[in-house]
């Protein structure tokens, strides 16, 4: 098991784990709607499959929020 931080909260995950798998584990409903930062760097969608999570990683999901006017 490895300790990582997801959206500011500590999680225990089993490695190996790709970013795509982590996103699934965190019940992100629509991956189209999220932008992901790992250790303060944005990770391109095309790299989600290949990026392997490591002990101590800090992951943030940023959600698209479109409302405001109508």
């Amino acid at each position, binding site marked *: 098991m490895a300790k990582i931080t997801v*959206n*500011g909260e500590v999680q225990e995950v089993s490695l190996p784990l790709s970013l795509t798998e982590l996103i699934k584990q965190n019940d992100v409903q*629509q991956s*189209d*709607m999220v*932008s992901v*930062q790992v250790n*303060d*760097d*944005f990770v*391109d969608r095309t790299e989600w499959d290949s990026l392997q999570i490591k002990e101590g990683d800090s992951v*943030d999901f*940023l*959600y*698209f*929020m*479109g*409302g*405001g*006017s*109508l």
Partner: protein
Amino acid sequence: MIDFTEEQIQRYSRHILLKDVGVEGQEKIMQAKVLVVGAGGLGAPVSLYLAAAGIGTIGIVDADVVDISNLQRQVIHFTKDVGRSKVESAKEKIQAINPDVKVNTYYEFLDSSNAFDIIKEYDFIVDGTDNFPVKFLINDACVMAGKPFSHGGILRFNGQTFTHLPGTACYRCMFKEPPPVGAVPTCSQAGVLGAIAGMLGTIQATETLKYFTGIGELLTNRLLSFDAKTMQFRTIAVKQRETCAICGKNPTIHNLIDYEQAACDLKNH
């Protein structure tokens, strides 16, 4: 130097009393020109607070008319305004609050054909729009024109905002391009708790006033989001992305883009 009238000294006394604002800060506020894009959920509180604060010129862009379903959160519009253009309705309230404010109305959609012309007249832009095409347009136009802006978005019980100054992270650094059409619900499709608009809009108005008075630290290189269900606020550090298509080292976007709008809207169903 502005010569304050006795009435203005009284009107702005609670600002002037603040050590960080004072007469000098109030003067900067009164010389400021702010463009509010969208006279809706966010634009309403933003415009009301900026008007009350004495912002010199407020421009409002909106091509819509007031609908009865707007009144649950768009507090600048009243029941009597249903059917009226939002910009005219907003202008009336702004001037009722503070006749010192000059109001410019743009009864049209902001798009690639008019964005630069409208934005260039203003010192600071507030994004109070409800859709991604215009959010990206505002971002791109402001980055290209070197204008600071406040981004805002709300959905259901959540809100998010950041402030952009030239040289800091932009919307495209965080979100490269609009999500696929139809993938993302807007307020008109997903719903929003009305008071959330006030929570987020007043943060945007505060950032605007901080920008002009130089108070404190702006929400630059940070994305603030909150969940009203738990009342948890979170600020995520974000960096300007070197490969950003608009503000990165080798920008690939050189012209404004009119992205396709999501076609569905509750009003049409």
